[in-house]
């Protein structure tokens, strides 16, 4: 192959590589554009402060879904955070513990299981015994989704910290648990917060695990044992509905949800840089 043809091929491949990138980014641009232009019109005072209007009537808002999103996700973060942090600390701080190998395997396995199956599981485990759909069961499903993410993030951050830090603590006569709680965790704070926030962002966008757990509820509710609404759930229900106004509000909810998730992701990145 002569030189000119090799140079030509080199140039052509540059075009192809950037073209491929453009093929990926163009739809993203379209999605963001549509979500923004269609959604911005739906975001008014009523949208944030009113419960939904009856089907087909028009008007109403997303208050129950907005509140529900926060309630369900924060409950999930409390449960998933506790278990994920515990598992992550165990794997990083007690490297020779016999539980670590199976625990790592379980974290990998859980991380690869589709989110909808978390919903099925929470349905069988919580909804059926408790006799009805509930926000709590939705939180359980989302917590399971969060656990592997938090576990992996925690383990990774703790691993980066030098062993000298632990040795310094032990040399001062601190017991191991104080070393972990007072030295290691504060030192790894930024990374741990990042893991928690990323897990939160991942779970907050999921509708599938909530379909038959939190189920949805048109009325404002703070009762964790009753059905509750959530933004992703509402987007799904409204998007497949025949009502013009609901569809308009679905775009609004999509914009709001996207903004919330982007903000969470941004905070996660910032926490990592600080920590």
């Amino acid at each position, binding site marked *: 192959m002569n030189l000119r043809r090799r140079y030509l091929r080199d140039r052509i491949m540059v075009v192809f*590589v950037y073209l491929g990138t453009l093929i990926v980014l163009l739809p993203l641009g379209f999605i963001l554009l*549509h979500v923004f232009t269609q959604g911005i019109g739906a975001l008014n005072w009523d949208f944030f402060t009113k419960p939904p209007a009856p089907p087909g009537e028009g008007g109403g808002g997303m208050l129950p879904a907005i509140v529900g999103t926060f309630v369900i996700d924060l409950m999930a973060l409390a449960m998933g955070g506790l278990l994920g942090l515990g*598992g992550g600390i165990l794997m990083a701080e007690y490297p020779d513990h016999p539980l670590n190998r199976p625990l790592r395997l379980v*974290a990998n396995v859980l991380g690869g*299981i*589709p989110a909808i199956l978390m919903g*099925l599981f929470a*349905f069988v485990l919580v909804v059926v015994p408790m006799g009805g759909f509930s926000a709590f069961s939705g939180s359980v499903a989302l917590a399971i989704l969060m656990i592997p993410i938090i576990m992996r993030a925690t383990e990774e951050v703790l691993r980066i910290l030098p062993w000298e830090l632990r040795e310094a603590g032990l040399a001062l006569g601190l017991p191991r648990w104080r070393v972990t709680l007072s030295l290691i965790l504060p030192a790894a704070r930024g990374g741990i917060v990042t893991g928690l926030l990323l897990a939160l962002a991942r779970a907050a966008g999921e509708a599938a695990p909530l379909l038959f757990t939190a189920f949805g509820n048109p009325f404002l509710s703070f009762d964790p044992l009753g059905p509750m609404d959530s933004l992703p759930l509402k*987007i799904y229900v409204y998007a497949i509905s025949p009502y013009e106004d609901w569809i308009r509000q679905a775009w609004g909810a999509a914009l709001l949800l*996207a903004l919330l998730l982007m903000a969470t992701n941004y905070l996660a990145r910032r926490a990592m840089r600080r920590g």
Partner: protein
Amino acid sequence: MRSKIYGKPGDRVFTALLVVLGLTVMLVAALMAWELGFGGREAFRAFGFWGFLRGTAWDAVAEQFGAWPFLVGTLITSAVALALAFLPALAAAIAVAEYAPRWLGELVAYLIDLLAALPSVVYGLWGIFVLVPLVRDHVEQPLFLWSAEHAPALMGVLGPPTGIGMLSAVLVLALMIVPYASSLARDAIRLVPRSQREAMYALGATRWEVVRRVVLPYARGGIFAGVILALARAIGETMAVTMLIGNSGQLPYSVFGPAATMASVIANEFAEAEGGLQLSSLLAVGFLLMLLSLAVNLVADFILRRMSVGEGRK
């Protein structure tokens, strides 16, 4: 030594607490597999495991259930989506890690991560109101009319050009899995040692030749692992597919026509399932879906591990 370090009462309590938390995580995972399998026992008993797997009927009235249409739907949609997504994802990874100047690379990488951060329902919403009309009016109907005129035999393969169906679902799915394939490929490409590239340049290679002969072969483990993880995402993807695929469990599927996947049939029917056998059958489909994604993830894990051993990482 060991007993002294771990032996203090506070340490014992703390370790016990961590062990309890860790055991709970493991218990949850084990319980999950058990509950899905156990929940599906009625269906497996009524039709037999293989009978259920290979059964093509899904009829709540006649109480006949089989997972085959959904398994086929899942495999076709994920495989096609992956085929569509692979080259653009790889191109984006090469652009970010090799070709683009730093600022542009970072921007593109950020945007691709954003693609992964958008929720599935937002893709579904966009799919229904933007992609479906586009695909229907500018791809499906022209093709359908053309085939009606020139190749009537093709019409059955193409199916009804309504926009809602396999084609739209596959397109959105492809878009959604790009970031997973792309980010792993990007990481793998960044791990290729500089000396490898420089040696190739010193031989007089062009930039593309360096990418083609050195970077891609060196990074192939990570690239493959990314592809398989993307496949796993596609298999489990629920909401966007449910909103776009039309949810019909009737074999044979056509290119434009409605279809269903394992995840979409669960999302679509579970809340309204009547009767124990339908519920049990849906749980059984969930069990099969779990087995499928487990298998795919284990393969990805295996490939990643082999790559990292070969290159002496970790």
